[in-house]
Protein backbone atom coordinates (compact mmCIF):
# COMPACT_ATOMS: atom_id res chain seq x y z
CA UNK A 1 0.00 0.00 0.00
CA UNK A 2 1.60 3.23 -1.00
CA UNK A 3 0.89 6.62 0.46
CA UNK A 4 -1.56 5.61 3.18
CA UNK A 5 -3.53 8.63 4.01
CA UNK A 6 -2.99 9.63 7.60
CA UNK A 7 -6.43 10.96 8.33
CA UNK A 8 -9.02 10.26 11.02
CA UNK A 9 -12.65 11.01 10.53
CA UNK A 10 -14.71 11.68 13.61
CA UNK A 11 -18.46 11.52 13.23
CA UNK A 12 -21.04 12.83 15.64
CA UNK A 13 -24.15 10.72 16.27
CA UNK A 14 -26.52 13.36 14.96
CA UNK A 15 -25.02 12.85 11.48
CA UNK A 16 -25.85 9.15 11.47
CA UNK A 17 -29.35 9.80 12.73
CA UNK A 18 -29.96 12.34 9.98
CA UNK A 19 -28.68 9.94 7.32
CA UNK A 20 -30.92 7.13 8.61
CA UNK A 21 -33.89 9.47 8.71
CA UNK A 22 -33.24 10.69 5.15
CA UNK A 23 -32.99 7.07 4.02
CA UNK A 24 -36.38 6.34 5.56
CA UNK A 25 -37.87 9.31 3.76
CA UNK A 26 -36.36 8.55 0.36
CA UNK A 27 -38.70 8.89 -2.62
CA UNK A 28 -40.27 5.76 -4.02
CA UNK A 29 -37.96 3.81 -6.24
CA UNK A 30 -34.84 5.37 -4.85
CA UNK A 31 -32.19 3.01 -3.61
CA UNK A 32 -29.81 5.28 -1.94
CA UNK A 33 -29.67 8.83 -0.70
CA UNK A 34 -26.76 11.19 -0.88
CA UNK A 35 -26.06 14.43 0.86
CA UNK A 36 -23.50 16.92 2.06
CA UNK A 37 -21.42 16.57 5.18
CA UNK A 38 -20.43 19.71 7.08
CA UNK A 39 -18.03 20.13 9.91
CA UNK A 40 -14.49 21.20 10.66
CA UNK A 41 -11.11 20.16 9.36
CA UNK A 42 -8.20 20.27 11.76
CA UNK A 43 -4.78 18.98 10.65
CA UNK A 44 -5.09 15.21 10.51
CA UNK A 45 -8.64 15.07 11.76
CA UNK A 46 -11.91 15.76 10.05
CA UNK A 47 -14.81 16.27 12.41
CA UNK A 48 -18.26 15.86 10.89
CA UNK A 49 -20.88 17.66 12.93
CA UNK A 50 -23.92 17.89 10.69
CA UNK A 51 -25.29 16.81 7.35
CA UNK A 52 -28.26 17.29 5.06
CA UNK A 53 -29.72 15.23 2.30
CA UNK A 54 -29.90 16.25 -1.37
CA UNK A 55 -32.46 15.17 -3.94
CA UNK A 56 -30.81 13.12 -6.67
CA UNK A 57 -31.60 10.53 -9.32
CA UNK A 58 -29.31 7.88 -10.66
CA UNK A 59 -29.58 6.65 -14.21
CA UNK A 60 -27.54 4.14 -16.16
CA UNK A 61 -24.70 6.41 -17.02
CA UNK A 62 -25.36 9.67 -15.36
CA UNK A 63 -26.38 11.20 -12.08
CA UNK A 64 -28.75 14.07 -11.60
CA UNK A 65 -28.36 15.99 -8.39
CA UNK A 66 -29.97 19.24 -7.45
CA UNK A 67 -26.87 21.35 -7.00
CA UNK A 68 -28.82 24.54 -6.40
CA UNK A 69 -30.52 22.78 -3.52
CA UNK A 70 -27.18 21.75 -2.06
CA UNK A 71 -25.82 25.26 -2.29
CA UNK A 72 -28.91 26.85 -0.84
CA UNK A 73 -29.05 24.43 2.11
CA UNK A 74 -25.41 25.07 2.82
CA UNK A 75 -26.03 28.82 2.81
CA UNK A 76 -28.95 28.37 5.23
CA UNK A 77 -26.82 26.17 7.45
CA UNK A 78 -24.06 28.75 7.40
CA UNK A 79 -26.43 31.36 8.76
CA UNK A 80 -27.05 29.28 11.84
CA UNK A 81 -23.66 27.63 12.24
CA UNK A 82 -21.12 29.89 10.61
CA UNK A 83 -18.12 27.82 11.63
CA UNK A 84 -19.16 24.71 9.72
CA UNK A 85 -17.71 24.09 6.27
CA UNK A 86 -18.36 21.40 3.69
CA UNK A 87 -16.07 18.48 4.44
CA UNK A 88 -17.44 15.86 2.10
CA UNK A 89 -20.51 13.87 1.22
CA UNK A 90 -22.33 10.75 2.31
CA UNK A 91 -24.22 7.96 0.62
CA UNK A 92 -26.20 5.08 2.01
CA UNK A 93 -25.48 1.56 0.88
CA UNK A 94 -22.41 -0.57 1.07
CA UNK A 95 -20.52 0.01 -2.14
CA UNK A 96 -18.77 2.62 -4.15
CA UNK A 97 -20.22 2.84 -7.61
CA UNK A 98 -19.07 4.67 -10.69
CA UNK A 99 -21.68 7.27 -9.91
CA UNK A 100 -19.84 7.95 -6.69
CA UNK A 101 -16.83 9.12 -8.66
CA UNK A 102 -18.97 11.61 -10.54
CA UNK A 103 -20.54 12.93 -7.36
CA UNK A 104 -17.15 13.13 -5.71
CA UNK A 105 -15.87 15.24 -8.57
CA UNK A 106 -18.52 17.82 -7.80
CA UNK A 107 -17.60 17.91 -4.16
CA UNK A 108 -13.92 18.15 -4.98
CA UNK A 109 -14.79 21.45 -6.62
CA UNK A 110 -16.58 22.67 -3.50
CA UNK A 111 -13.88 21.89 -1.01
CA UNK A 112 -10.33 20.68 -0.88
CA UNK A 113 -10.04 16.94 -0.34
CA UNK A 114 -13.59 15.93 0.47
CA UNK A 115 -14.18 12.69 2.33
CA UNK A 116 -16.83 10.19 1.39
CA UNK A 117 -18.85 8.46 4.09
CA UNK A 118 -21.01 5.39 3.52
CA UNK A 119 -23.57 4.15 5.96
CA UNK A 120 -25.05 0.76 5.24
CA UNK A 121 -28.69 1.36 6.04
CA UNK A 122 -29.71 -1.61 3.94
CA UNK A 123 -28.16 -3.85 6.61
CA UNK A 124 -26.64 -6.05 3.92
CA UNK A 125 -24.13 -7.49 6.38
CA UNK A 126 -26.56 -7.56 9.26
CA UNK A 127 -24.94 -4.51 10.75
CA UNK A 128 -25.09 -0.82 10.07
CA UNK A 129 -21.58 -0.44 8.74
CA UNK A 130 -19.98 2.96 8.55
CA UNK A 131 -16.97 3.49 6.33
CA UNK A 132 -15.10 6.54 5.14
CA UNK A 133 -12.97 7.05 2.06
CA UNK A 134 -10.81 9.61 0.41
CA UNK A 135 -10.14 9.71 -3.28
CA UNK A 136 -6.41 9.71 -3.80
CA UNK A 137 -5.21 10.72 -7.24
CA UNK A 138 -3.11 8.05 -8.87
CA UNK A 139 -1.82 7.44 -12.27
CA UNK A 140 1.00 8.03 -14.56
CA UNK A 141 1.95 11.70 -14.83
CA UNK A 142 1.14 13.25 -18.16
CA UNK A 143 -0.94 10.24 -19.01
CA UNK A 144 -4.01 8.52 -17.70
CA UNK A 145 -4.80 9.59 -14.19
CA UNK A 146 -7.63 8.64 -11.96
CA UNK A 147 -8.49 8.35 -8.34
CA UNK A 148 -8.06 5.49 -5.99
CA UNK A 149 -10.65 5.11 -3.32
CA UNK A 150 -8.75 4.68 -0.08
CA UNK A 151 -10.47 3.80 3.15
CA UNK A 152 -9.61 5.97 6.12
CA UNK A 153 -10.09 5.43 9.80
CA UNK A 154 -13.48 6.55 11.00
CA UNK A 155 -14.73 6.64 14.54
CA UNK A 156 -17.63 7.93 16.50
CA UNK A 157 -17.25 10.85 18.80
CA UNK A 158 -19.71 12.62 21.01
CA UNK A 159 -19.76 15.39 23.54
CA UNK A 160 -21.04 14.82 27.08
CA UNK A 161 -24.53 16.19 26.40
CA UNK A 162 -24.79 14.04 23.28
CA UNK A 163 -23.94 10.97 25.32
CA UNK A 164 -26.60 11.91 27.86
CA UNK A 165 -29.08 12.11 24.97
CA UNK A 166 -27.91 8.78 23.55
CA UNK A 167 -28.30 7.17 26.99
CA UNK A 168 -31.94 8.12 26.96
CA UNK A 169 -32.43 6.96 23.37
CA UNK A 170 -30.86 3.57 24.07
CA UNK A 171 -33.85 2.72 26.21
CA UNK A 172 -36.15 2.58 23.18
CA UNK A 173 -34.42 -0.63 22.11
CA UNK A 174 -35.92 -2.43 25.05
CA UNK A 175 -39.47 -1.18 24.71
CA UNK A 176 -41.95 -2.93 22.41
CA UNK A 177 -43.39 0.30 21.14
CA UNK A 178 -39.96 1.93 20.83
CA UNK A 179 -41.10 4.67 23.16
CA UNK A 180 -39.35 6.06 26.18
CA UNK A 181 -40.20 8.88 28.53
CA UNK A 182 -37.56 11.28 29.75
CA UNK A 183 -36.42 9.91 33.12
CA UNK A 184 -36.31 12.06 36.24
CA UNK A 185 -32.86 12.51 37.71
CA UNK A 186 -33.32 10.27 40.73
CA UNK A 187 -34.38 7.34 38.53
CA UNK A 188 -31.27 7.82 36.41
CA UNK A 189 -29.06 7.60 39.50
CA UNK A 190 -30.91 4.48 40.67
CA UNK A 191 -30.42 2.92 37.24
CA UNK A 192 -26.72 3.75 37.34
CA UNK A 193 -26.42 2.14 40.78
CA UNK A 194 -28.13 -1.00 39.45
CA UNK A 195 -25.80 -1.06 36.46
CA UNK A 196 -22.77 -0.71 38.73
CA UNK A 197 -24.05 -3.56 40.87
CA UNK A 198 -24.46 -5.81 37.83
CA UNK A 199 -21.00 -4.96 36.54
CA UNK A 200 -19.46 -5.64 39.94
CA UNK A 201 -21.26 -9.00 40.07
CA UNK A 202 -19.72 -10.03 36.74
CA UNK A 203 -16.25 -8.95 37.88
CA UNK A 204 -16.59 -10.79 41.18
CA UNK A 205 -17.71 -13.97 39.39
CA UNK A 206 -14.65 -13.74 37.15
CA UNK A 207 -12.29 -13.28 40.09
CA UNK A 208 -13.84 -16.20 41.94
CA UNK A 209 -13.53 -18.49 38.93
CA UNK A 210 -9.88 -17.50 38.47
CA UNK A 211 -9.18 -18.23 42.13
CA UNK A 212 -10.94 -21.59 41.84
CA UNK A 213 -8.75 -22.36 38.83
CA UNK A 214 -11.60 -22.57 36.34
CA UNK A 215 -10.34 -19.72 34.20
CA UNK A 216 -6.99 -18.51 33.03
CA UNK A 217 -5.83 -15.38 34.83
CA UNK A 218 -5.29 -12.46 32.51
CA UNK A 219 -2.75 -9.89 33.68
CA UNK A 220 -4.34 -6.94 31.91
CA UNK A 221 -7.64 -7.67 33.61
CA UNK A 222 -5.78 -8.04 36.88
CA UNK A 223 -4.09 -4.67 36.48
CA UNK A 224 -7.42 -3.05 35.61
CA UNK A 225 -8.89 -4.57 38.77
CA UNK A 226 -6.10 -3.14 40.89
CA UNK A 227 -6.69 0.27 39.33
CA UNK A 228 -10.37 -0.03 40.03
CA UNK A 229 -9.90 -0.84 43.70
CA UNK A 230 -7.34 1.89 44.16
CA UNK A 231 -9.54 4.50 42.49
CA UNK A 232 -11.72 4.67 45.58
CA UNK A 233 -9.98 7.49 47.48
CA UNK A 234 -8.59 6.53 50.84
CA UNK A 235 -10.06 8.69 53.54
CA UNK A 236 -9.97 8.63 57.30
CA UNK A 237 -13.38 7.17 58.22
CA UNK A 238 -14.06 9.85 60.83
CA UNK A 239 -13.31 12.62 58.38
CA UNK A 240 -15.37 10.95 55.69
CA UNK A 241 -18.33 10.64 58.03
CA UNK A 242 -18.03 14.32 58.91
CA UNK A 243 -17.83 15.40 55.26
CA UNK A 244 -20.77 13.21 54.30
CA UNK A 245 -22.92 14.53 57.10
CA UNK A 246 -22.15 18.18 56.45
CA UNK A 247 -22.92 17.77 52.75
CA UNK A 248 -26.16 16.00 53.54
CA UNK A 249 -27.11 18.72 55.99
CA UNK A 250 -26.46 21.42 53.39
CA UNK A 251 -28.59 19.67 50.81
CA UNK A 252 -31.42 19.04 53.25
CA UNK A 253 -31.38 22.68 54.28
CA UNK A 254 -31.62 23.80 50.66
CA UNK A 255 -34.54 21.46 50.05
CA UNK A 256 -36.27 22.86 53.13
CA UNK A 257 -35.67 26.44 52.02
CA UNK A 258 -37.02 25.80 48.54
CA UNK A 259 -40.25 24.23 49.80
CA UNK A 260 -40.57 27.18 52.20
CA UNK A 261 -40.21 29.51 49.21
CA UNK A 262 -42.90 27.65 47.31
CA UNK A 263 -45.33 27.98 50.21
CA UNK A 264 -44.52 31.68 50.54
CA UNK A 265 -45.25 32.18 46.84
CA UNK A 266 -48.67 30.66 47.23
CA UNK A 267 -49.41 32.84 50.26
CA UNK A 268 -48.24 35.93 48.41
CA UNK A 269 -50.51 35.16 45.49
CA UNK A 270 -53.54 34.63 47.71
CA UNK A 271 -52.93 37.73 49.83
CA UNK A 272 -52.53 40.06 46.86
CA UNK A 273 -55.75 38.75 45.38
CA UNK A 274 -57.45 39.34 48.74
CA UNK A 275 -56.36 42.96 48.78
CA UNK A 276 -57.62 43.40 45.21
CA UNK A 277 -60.99 42.12 46.39
CA UNK A 278 -60.85 44.51 49.32
CA UNK A 279 -60.32 47.53 47.09
CA UNK A 280 -63.11 46.44 44.83
CA UNK A 281 -65.53 46.14 47.75
CA UNK A 282 -64.60 49.61 48.98
CA UNK A 283 -65.11 51.27 45.62
CA UNK A 284 -68.44 49.52 45.21
CA UNK A 285 -69.40 50.92 48.59
CA UNK A 286 -68.46 54.32 47.27
CA UNK A 287 -70.58 53.97 44.12
CA UNK A 288 -73.63 53.11 46.15
CA UNK A 289 -73.27 56.34 48.05
Amino acid sequence: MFGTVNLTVKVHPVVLFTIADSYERRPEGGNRVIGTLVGNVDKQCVEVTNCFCIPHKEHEDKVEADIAYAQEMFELNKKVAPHETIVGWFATGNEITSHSALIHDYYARETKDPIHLTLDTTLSTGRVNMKAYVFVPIGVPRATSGSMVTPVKVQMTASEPEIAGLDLLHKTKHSKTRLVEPVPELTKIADAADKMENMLDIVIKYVESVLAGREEPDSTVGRALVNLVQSVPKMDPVKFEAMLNSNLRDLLMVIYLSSLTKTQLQLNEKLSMVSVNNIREMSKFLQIE
Partner: protein
Amino acid sequence: KIELVQIDGLVLMKLIKHCHEAERSGSLFVQGALLGLVSESRLEVTHCFPFMALGDDSQDDDEFQLTMLRRLRQMNIDHQQVGWYQSSQFANFLSLTLLESQFSYQTSIEESICLVFDTAKTAQGFVSLKAYRLTGETLKLVKEGDYSADNVKENNISYESLLTEVPIVIKNSYLMNALLLELQEQLPLQVGGSQFLDLGTSGTLETQLRVMMDSLDELNSECLKFNKHQQIVLKQIQEKNKYIQKRAQENKQRIDRKEDPLPAEDLNKLFKPIPPPSRMNPLILSGTIQNTSEEVSEFCSQSMAKLFITEPLQAAKASAASSSQ
Protein backbone atom coordinates in the same frame (compact mmCIF):
# COMPACT_ATOMS: atom_id res chain seq x y z
CA LYS B 1 -56.53 19.11 22.91
CA ILE B 2 -53.01 17.79 23.02
CA GLU B 3 -52.32 15.14 25.59
CA LEU B 4 -49.04 13.70 24.48
CA VAL B 5 -46.04 14.95 22.59
CA GLN B 6 -44.08 12.34 20.69
CA ILE B 7 -40.57 13.36 19.71
CA ASP B 8 -38.28 11.51 17.32
CA GLY B 9 -34.86 10.56 18.56
CA LEU B 10 -33.41 12.55 15.69
CA VAL B 11 -35.04 15.75 16.98
CA LEU B 12 -33.53 15.22 20.43
CA MET B 13 -30.03 14.83 18.97
CA LYS B 14 -30.46 17.91 16.78
CA LEU B 15 -31.68 19.93 19.77
CA ILE B 16 -28.66 18.87 21.80
CA LYS B 17 -26.32 19.79 18.96
CA HIS B 18 -27.81 23.21 18.31
CA CYS B 19 -28.33 24.33 21.91
CA HIS B 20 -24.97 23.20 23.18
CA GLU B 21 -23.06 24.54 20.22
CA ALA B 22 -24.73 27.90 20.72
CA GLU B 23 -23.96 27.83 24.43
CA ARG B 24 -20.30 27.24 23.68
CA SER B 25 -20.24 30.25 21.38
CA GLY B 26 -21.88 32.37 24.06
CA SER B 27 -25.52 32.93 23.10
CA LEU B 28 -27.64 31.75 25.96
CA PHE B 29 -31.07 31.72 24.38
CA VAL B 30 -31.47 30.06 21.04
CA GLN B 31 -34.68 29.21 19.31
CA GLY B 32 -35.84 27.05 16.49
CA ALA B 33 -38.88 25.58 14.82
CA LEU B 34 -40.45 22.18 15.35
CA LEU B 35 -41.97 20.35 12.42
CA GLY B 36 -44.28 17.39 12.46
CA LEU B 37 -47.90 16.40 12.40
CA VAL B 38 -50.93 16.11 14.63
CA SER B 39 -52.80 12.85 15.01
CA GLU B 40 -55.81 12.92 17.34
CA SER B 41 -54.59 14.02 20.75
CA ARG B 42 -50.96 13.27 19.99
CA LEU B 43 -48.52 15.76 18.58
CA GLU B 44 -45.65 14.16 16.68
CA VAL B 45 -42.48 16.13 16.24
CA THR B 46 -40.40 14.62 13.46
CA HIS B 47 -37.93 17.32 12.57
CA CYS B 48 -36.57 20.63 13.72
CA PHE B 49 -34.34 23.39 12.50
CA PRO B 50 -32.71 26.32 14.25
CA PHE B 51 -33.62 29.96 13.77
CA MET B 52 -31.02 32.52 12.93
CA ALA B 53 -29.62 34.39 15.89
CA LEU B 54 -32.03 37.08 17.02
CA GLY B 55 -30.71 39.86 14.89
CA ASP B 56 -32.13 43.13 13.74
CA ASP B 57 -33.57 41.95 10.48
CA SER B 58 -36.79 40.07 11.03
CA GLN B 59 -37.50 39.93 7.34
CA ASP B 60 -34.41 37.83 6.84
CA ASP B 61 -35.72 35.48 9.51
CA ASP B 62 -39.03 35.00 7.71
CA GLU B 63 -37.27 34.40 4.41
CA PHE B 64 -34.92 31.93 6.09
CA GLN B 65 -37.83 30.00 7.52
CA LEU B 66 -39.78 29.92 4.27
CA THR B 67 -36.79 28.76 2.25
CA MET B 68 -35.96 26.13 4.86
CA LEU B 69 -39.52 24.81 4.89
CA ARG B 70 -39.65 24.67 1.10
CA ARG B 71 -36.38 22.78 0.86
CA LEU B 72 -37.28 20.33 3.59
CA ARG B 73 -40.56 19.65 1.87
CA GLN B 74 -38.64 18.50 -1.20
CA MET B 75 -37.00 15.83 0.87
CA ASN B 76 -40.30 14.43 2.12
CA ILE B 77 -39.78 15.94 5.54
CA ASP B 78 -42.96 17.10 7.27
CA HIS B 79 -43.23 20.78 6.61
CA GLN B 80 -46.01 21.67 9.00
CA GLN B 81 -44.79 23.74 11.89
CA VAL B 82 -46.13 22.38 15.15
CA GLY B 83 -44.32 24.60 17.58
CA TRP B 84 -40.98 26.03 18.52
CA TYR B 85 -38.20 25.35 20.94
CA GLN B 86 -36.04 27.45 23.20
CA SER B 87 -32.98 26.72 25.27
CA SER B 88 -32.78 27.70 28.93
CA GLN B 89 -30.48 27.39 31.91
CA PHE B 90 -32.03 25.90 35.05
CA ALA B 91 -35.60 26.81 34.31
CA ASN B 92 -35.18 30.53 33.68
CA PHE B 93 -37.21 30.45 30.46
CA LEU B 94 -40.41 32.09 31.71
CA SER B 95 -40.77 35.61 30.34
CA LEU B 96 -43.36 37.83 28.71
CA THR B 97 -41.76 37.30 25.29
CA LEU B 98 -42.14 33.55 25.68
CA LEU B 99 -45.81 33.91 26.53
CA GLU B 100 -46.43 36.27 23.66
CA SER B 101 -44.58 34.10 21.12
CA GLN B 102 -46.45 31.02 22.27
CA PHE B 103 -49.65 33.03 22.06
CA SER B 104 -49.01 33.91 18.40
CA TYR B 105 -48.16 30.26 17.65
CA GLN B 106 -51.22 28.91 19.41
CA THR B 107 -53.56 31.32 17.70
CA SER B 108 -52.26 30.45 14.23
CA ILE B 109 -51.75 26.72 14.82
CA GLU B 110 -53.98 25.51 17.59
CA GLU B 111 -51.94 22.53 18.68
CA SER B 112 -48.53 24.17 18.88
CA ILE B 113 -46.25 23.59 21.83
CA CYS B 114 -43.22 25.30 23.22
CA LEU B 115 -40.39 22.90 23.93
CA VAL B 116 -37.94 24.04 26.56
CA PHE B 117 -34.55 22.37 26.51
CA ASP B 118 -32.39 22.94 29.56
CA THR B 119 -28.75 23.14 28.50
CA ALA B 120 -27.36 23.49 32.03
CA LYS B 121 -29.01 20.29 33.18
CA THR B 122 -28.01 18.37 30.06
CA ALA B 123 -24.43 19.48 30.57
CA GLN B 124 -24.68 17.82 33.98
CA GLY B 125 -25.78 14.62 32.30
CA PHE B 126 -29.56 14.68 32.72
CA VAL B 127 -31.59 15.26 29.60
CA SER B 128 -34.18 17.88 30.43
CA LEU B 129 -36.95 18.43 27.93
CA LYS B 130 -40.36 19.89 28.74
CA ALA B 131 -43.30 20.79 26.53
CA TYR B 132 -45.59 23.66 27.48
CA ARG B 133 -48.80 25.14 26.19
CA LEU B 134 -50.70 28.21 27.29
CA THR B 135 -53.85 27.56 29.28
CA GLY B 136 -57.17 28.92 28.08
CA GLU B 137 -57.12 31.62 30.72
CA THR B 138 -53.67 32.80 29.75
CA LEU B 139 -54.73 32.93 26.10
CA LYS B 140 -57.56 35.21 27.04
CA LEU B 141 -55.31 37.38 29.18
CA VAL B 142 -52.68 37.86 26.49
CA LYS B 143 -55.32 38.55 23.87
CA GLU B 144 -56.85 41.30 25.97
CA GLY B 145 -53.43 42.63 26.83
CA ASP B 146 -54.76 43.96 30.11
CA TYR B 147 -52.44 42.77 32.84
CA SER B 148 -53.97 44.73 35.72
CA ALA B 149 -54.69 42.99 38.98
CA ASP B 150 -58.44 43.24 38.47
CA ASN B 151 -58.34 41.42 35.16
CA VAL B 152 -56.03 38.77 36.52
CA LYS B 153 -58.39 38.18 39.45
CA GLU B 154 -61.34 38.14 37.06
CA ASN B 155 -59.86 35.33 35.01
CA ASN B 156 -58.65 33.50 38.09
CA ILE B 157 -55.08 33.24 36.91
CA SER B 158 -52.29 32.29 39.25
CA TYR B 159 -48.62 31.80 38.45
CA GLU B 160 -49.21 28.05 38.44
CA SER B 161 -51.87 28.19 35.76
CA LEU B 162 -49.92 30.22 33.23
CA LEU B 163 -48.63 27.17 31.39
CA THR B 164 -49.64 23.55 31.27
CA GLU B 165 -47.00 20.89 30.88
CA VAL B 166 -47.63 18.18 28.31
CA PRO B 167 -45.99 14.76 28.83
CA ILE B 168 -43.32 13.78 26.32
CA VAL B 169 -42.32 10.44 24.89
CA ILE B 170 -39.39 9.81 22.63
CA LYS B 171 -39.73 7.42 19.75
CA ASN B 172 -37.25 5.72 17.47
CA SER B 173 -37.82 3.78 14.30
CA TYR B 174 -36.48 0.25 13.86
CA LEU B 175 -33.60 1.50 11.75
CA MET B 176 -32.68 3.94 14.48
CA ASN B 177 -32.65 1.10 16.99
CA ALA B 178 -30.25 -0.83 14.78
CA LEU B 179 -28.12 2.29 14.52
CA LEU B 180 -28.14 2.69 18.29
CA LEU B 181 -26.86 -0.86 18.69
CA GLU B 182 -24.01 -0.04 16.37
CA LEU B 183 -23.28 3.21 18.20
CA GLN B 184 -23.18 1.41 21.51
CA GLU B 185 -20.32 -0.70 20.29
CA GLN B 186 -18.53 1.99 18.40
CA LEU B 187 -18.48 4.76 20.94
CA PRO B 188 -15.13 4.55 22.74
CA LEU B 189 -15.25 4.50 26.51
CA GLN B 190 -12.96 7.48 26.88
CA VAL B 191 -15.61 9.78 25.47
CA GLY B 192 -17.30 9.99 28.83
CA GLY B 193 -20.88 9.43 29.85
CA SER B 194 -20.42 9.46 33.60
CA GLN B 195 -20.82 13.18 34.01
CA PHE B 196 -24.07 12.71 35.86
CA LEU B 197 -22.32 10.79 38.64
CA ASP B 198 -20.21 13.78 39.58
CA LEU B 199 -20.34 14.43 43.32
CA GLY B 200 -19.60 18.16 43.23
CA THR B 201 -22.63 20.20 44.16
CA SER B 202 -21.52 23.59 45.34
CA GLY B 203 -21.07 25.20 41.90
CA THR B 204 -24.54 24.40 40.63
CA LEU B 205 -26.20 25.06 43.96
CA GLU B 206 -24.58 28.46 44.22
CA THR B 207 -25.76 29.53 40.76
CA GLN B 208 -29.27 28.26 41.27
CA LEU B 209 -29.66 29.80 44.70
CA ARG B 210 -28.31 33.08 43.46
CA VAL B 211 -30.87 33.09 40.64
CA MET B 212 -33.56 32.34 43.18
CA MET B 213 -32.39 35.14 45.47
CA ASP B 214 -32.36 37.66 42.64
CA SER B 215 -35.84 36.68 41.52
CA LEU B 216 -37.08 36.87 45.12
CA ASP B 217 -35.62 40.35 45.53
CA GLU B 218 -37.37 41.47 42.37
CA LEU B 219 -40.61 39.87 43.48
CA ASN B 220 -40.27 41.66 46.80
CA SER B 221 -39.94 45.05 45.12
CA GLU B 222 -42.91 44.25 42.90
CA CYS B 223 -44.95 43.38 46.00
CA LEU B 224 -43.97 46.64 47.67
CA LYS B 225 -44.98 48.51 44.54
CA PHE B 226 -48.29 46.72 44.49
CA ASN B 227 -48.95 47.36 48.18
CA LYS B 228 -48.11 51.02 47.83
CA HIS B 229 -50.49 51.26 44.90
CA GLN B 230 -53.22 49.63 46.99
CA GLN B 231 -52.63 52.10 49.81
CA ILE B 232 -52.80 55.09 47.48
CA VAL B 233 -56.01 53.82 45.93
CA LEU B 234 -57.48 53.26 49.37
CA LYS B 235 -56.56 56.76 50.47
CA GLN B 236 -58.06 58.16 47.29
CA ILE B 237 -61.30 56.30 47.93
CA GLN B 238 -61.45 57.74 51.44
CA GLU B 239 -60.85 61.25 50.15
CA LYS B 240 -63.54 60.77 47.53
CA ASN B 241 -65.86 59.65 50.31
CA LYS B 242 -65.05 62.70 52.41
CA TYR B 243 -65.56 64.98 49.43
CA ILE B 244 -68.94 63.47 48.62
CA GLN B 245 -70.06 63.75 52.21
CA LYS B 246 -68.89 67.36 52.42
CA ARG B 247 -70.73 68.11 49.21
CA ALA B 248 -73.91 66.46 50.45
CA GLN B 249 -73.69 68.41 53.70
CA GLU B 250 -73.10 71.69 51.90
CA ASN B 251 -75.99 71.00 49.57
CA LYS B 252 -78.27 70.29 52.54
CA GLN B 253 -77.25 73.55 54.16
CA ARG B 254 -77.86 75.42 50.93
CA ILE B 255 -81.28 73.87 50.47
CA ASP B 256 -82.07 74.93 54.08
CA ARG B 257 -81.04 78.45 53.21
CA LYS B 258 -83.24 78.19 50.11
CA GLU B 259 -80.25 78.41 47.73
CA ASP B 260 -79.51 76.29 44.69
CA PRO B 261 -77.47 73.22 45.35
CA LEU B 262 -73.97 73.09 43.92
CA PRO B 263 -73.68 71.31 40.60
CA ALA B 264 -72.44 67.74 40.72
CA GLU B 265 -68.85 67.59 39.72
CA ASP B 266 -67.10 64.87 37.89
CA LEU B 267 -65.22 62.98 40.58
CA ASN B 268 -62.81 61.58 38.09
CA LYS B 269 -61.56 65.04 37.15
CA LEU B 270 -60.86 65.94 40.75
CA PHE B 271 -59.39 62.61 41.72
CA LYS B 272 -57.40 61.29 38.83
CA PRO B 273 -57.55 57.51 38.69
CA ILE B 274 -54.16 55.98 39.41
CA PRO B 275 -53.01 53.42 36.84
CA PRO B 276 -52.56 50.02 38.48
CA PRO B 277 -49.20 48.29 38.11
CA SER B 278 -49.11 45.33 35.75
CA ARG B 279 -49.48 41.95 37.42
CA MET B 280 -47.55 40.22 34.66
CA ASN B 281 -44.11 40.71 36.15
CA PRO B 282 -44.99 39.34 39.60
CA LEU B 283 -46.73 36.38 37.95
CA ILE B 284 -43.71 35.61 35.82
CA LEU B 285 -41.32 36.05 38.73
CA SER B 286 -43.41 33.77 40.91
CA GLY B 287 -43.50 31.20 38.12
CA THR B 288 -39.72 31.40 37.68
CA ILE B 289 -39.11 31.05 41.40
CA GLN B 290 -41.46 28.07 41.52
CA ASN B 291 -39.60 26.38 38.65
CA THR B 292 -36.19 27.15 40.13
CA SER B 293 -37.11 25.82 43.56
CA GLU B 294 -38.39 22.59 42.02
CA GLU B 295 -35.16 22.23 40.06
CA VAL B 296 -33.15 22.87 43.21
CA SER B 297 -35.08 20.23 45.16
CA GLU B 298 -34.57 17.69 42.38
CA PHE B 299 -30.87 18.50 42.20
CA CYS B 300 -30.45 18.14 45.96
CA SER B 301 -32.28 14.83 46.12
CA GLN B 302 -30.14 13.26 43.41
CA SER B 303 -26.96 14.64 45.00
CA MET B 304 -27.98 13.04 48.27
CA ALA B 305 -28.53 9.75 46.46
CA LYS B 306 -25.00 9.94 45.03
CA LEU B 307 -23.56 10.65 48.48
CA PHE B 308 -25.38 7.63 49.85
CA ILE B 309 -23.81 5.51 47.12
CA THR B 310 -20.28 6.54 48.15
CA GLU B 311 -20.93 5.50 51.73
CA PRO B 312 -20.71 1.70 51.29
CA LEU B 313 -17.71 2.09 48.96
CA GLN B 314 -15.82 3.95 51.67
CA ALA B 315 -16.96 1.48 54.31
CA ALA B 316 -15.69 -1.42 52.18
CA LYS B 317 -12.37 0.35 51.63
CA ALA B 318 -12.01 1.05 55.36
CA SER B 319 -12.81 -2.53 56.31
CA ALA B 320 -10.42 -3.87 53.64
CA ALA B 321 -7.68 -1.61 54.98
CA SER B 322 -8.31 -2.69 58.57
CA SER B 323 -8.50 -6.41 57.65
CA SER B 324 -5.23 -6.25 55.71
CA GLN B 325 -3.39 -4.75 58.68
